[in-house]
């Protein structure tokens, strides 16, 4: 058995690290042993550490590094992939895109594991028509809190408690999910610049259903709420040929830069973000259609800059991502103006429409809108302002995304996930002794 090493762990936002006993996963039986022999601090699986807050850290616990088990296989006949939980979406895409397939749901980063994608029930630019990742999982193998292995399918309530269950129902070791056929590694992208938040939102309401993928970037510094909507679908071979693309199936995204290790505090401030946002808005044409972009550029633009989370400096940052139903779409504008009032510089502010949610009691997406803004942790009044926003969001039936959360209160969480008790009932059958624990589960008293 590989040895446990005391290791400081934090989320992608680099706030509030804790120290855990980190062990590399090497087999299902080893994982089962770690579960049955765990200390009172518990056990947690960790993937590539891209959740922003404290979901993949657990002070004093045994944290199992799943990224040492990475096998996967493409089953072209059934159009599915069966993968170890530690396999990364990056490695899977490198294998399947040249063979004409794509993952059913892609988050804003491909540097995540299959297990993490299921545990957080990630969503992407196609949520309005395809739902979240969990909706495309057909089977998974989970080791429960007693060390027993189960094969779960969408017929089981345990399956859905694990979708979006943040790793607290068991340790996912393998999963099978469907993939979609594609003709090329390019996306045909339509771009629309809109001068106000209202025009961004009404355009998305009207036209999102015409596209597989859509998302809007919002200029959070401008009081207009102007933005750039990008919409697209996988490009056909014919489209690539007509644009003179030589090798339309090739796929090999590379790092273009690495963020420096030491960044002074306050590099991202109101002025630098205002300048960035102005440039980003102007960079896009008022309207353009049929532009061919590589998969990496369209889905994972930040993956090209390794360790980009360092640019927020030593205090780290957080991402505030909430959902509100269509009946409360005005909260998108309220949130943007509240963040502007305290001078919160966010250059990554993303607005997206969600389709209906799935059966997972803790799955985040629900019909309506979701807004995500990256915010440096050090700005004053941030805590109070976000608490006020939490109240507004929860009052209209909205909620925060657990994979991003690092600061909501336990009461706000319980209020906004009304199926929490149902989930706890299933969790108690899978993990009666509550072996699985994270800093997130302690903070939110899950």
């Amino acid at each position, binding site marked *: 058995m590989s040895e446990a090493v005391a290791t400081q762990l934090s989320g992608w936002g680099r706030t*509030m690290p804790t120290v855990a006993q980190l062990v590399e996963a090497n087999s299902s039986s080893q994982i089962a042993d770690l579960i049955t022999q765990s200390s009172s601090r518990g056990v947690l699986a960790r993937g590539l550490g891209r959740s922003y807050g404290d979901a993949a850290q657990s002070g004093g616990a045994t944290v199992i590094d799943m990224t040492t088990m990475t096998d996967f296989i493409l089953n072209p006949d059934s159009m599915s992939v069966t993968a170890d939980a530690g396999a990364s979406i990056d490695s899977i895409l490198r294998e399947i895109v040249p063979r004409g397939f794509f993952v059913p749901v892609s988050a804003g980063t491909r540097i995540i594991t299959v297990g993490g994608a299921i545990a957080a029930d990630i969503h992407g630019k196609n949520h309005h028509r395809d739902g979240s990742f969990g909706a495309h999982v057909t089977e998974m193998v989970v080791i429960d809190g007693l060390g027993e292995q189960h094969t779960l399918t969408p017929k089981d309530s345990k399956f859905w408690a694990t979708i979006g269950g943040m790793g607290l129902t068991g340790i996912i070791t393998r999963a099978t999910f469907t993939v979609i056929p594609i003709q090329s590694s390019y996306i045909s992208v339509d771009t629309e610049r809109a001068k106000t938040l209202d025009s961004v939102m009404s355009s998305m309401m009207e036209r999102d259903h015409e596209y597989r993928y859509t998302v809007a970037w919002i200029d959070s510094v401008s009081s207009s709420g102007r933005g750039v909507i990008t919409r697209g679908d996988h490009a056909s071979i014919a489209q690539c040929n007509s644009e003179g693309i030589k090798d339309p199936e090739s796929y090999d995204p590379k790092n273009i830069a690495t963020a420096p290790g030491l960044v002074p505090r306050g590099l991202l401030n109101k002025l630098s973000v205002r300048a960035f946002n102005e440039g980003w808005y102007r960079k896009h044409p008022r309207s353009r259609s049929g532009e061919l972009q590589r998969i990496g550029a369209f889905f994972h633009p930040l993956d090209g800059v390794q360790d980009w989370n360092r640019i927020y400096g030593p205090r780290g940052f957080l991402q505030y991502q909430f959902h509100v139903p269509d009946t409360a779409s005005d909260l998108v504008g309220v949130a943007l103006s509240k963040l502007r009032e305290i001078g919160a510089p966010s250059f990554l502010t993303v607005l997206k429409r969600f389709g209906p949610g799935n059966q997972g009691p803790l799955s985040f997406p629900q019909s309506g809108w979701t807004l995500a803004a990256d915010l440096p942790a050090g700005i004053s009044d941030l805590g109070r302002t976000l608490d006020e926003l939490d109240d507004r969001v929860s009052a209209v039936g909205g909620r925060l995304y657990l994979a991003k959360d690092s600061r909501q209160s336990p009461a706000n969480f319980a209020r906004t996930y009304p199926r929490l008790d149902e989930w706890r009932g299933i969790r108690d059958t899978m993990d009666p002794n509550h072996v699985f624990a994270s800093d997130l589960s302690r903070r939110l008293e899950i």
Partner: protein
Amino acid sequence: MLDALGEPQSVLVLGGTSEIALATIKEMPRHRLRRVLLAGRPSESLDAAVAQLKARNIAGVESIEFDAKNTDTHGAIIDAAFDASDIDVVILAFGVLGDQMTAEEDPSHAVEIATVNYTGSVSAGLHIARRLKNQGHGTLVVLSSVAGDRARRSNFVYGSTKAGLDAFAQGLDAALEKTGAHVLIVRPGFVRTRMTSHLPEAPMTTNPEDVAKIIVSALKKGKSTVYAPGPLRFVMAGLKTLPKPLFRKLPS
């Protein structure tokens, strides 16, 4: 757990009637506090401290029995506090000023000061460190004093206990490196409290609320040593290097 903005959910105060500790809790964002344990000898003032925080709508405030001199009981008391749930911040706040002249005439009074301030803190501090290390996070706030920076004629018995405590806390911080646990040493100057109400005020005197603000800010920033007020750091650096004949001429 601390959240991303460094706001604690649970606090344990050893020396639950300490005005500095109570002011520190009031300075913390109240809506994130879920559990506040005030440990001390059962007394009306401990009950009053609980009532004072409850009146501020702070959730989960309760008192637990703790006697700094009764070191045999420290382990069980601290274990019980941590077994119930993680503790983000522990404030080691108990201590007595004593009376220097009485102590010189009756060494048993000096022993009493040393037992509470030093021996009691070493015992409690080591038990707390063990539990913080086990949970992989948390900060032990040690209320030291500038009186420990350089011994003065007028209060060297008290000063020596704080010097010992300060050295202990520095070493404990080193011992906890890479465990996720931290030690924050707070060195206040003269603070207007019950402990000092009979004494003439010194220069740079502060109130418990001022010290509380410094502690809360230091916790957020992850500092390991702070003076209160901050500029005392430079005053004490000067005093520590002052030649003995000059130092002794200063008003005590």
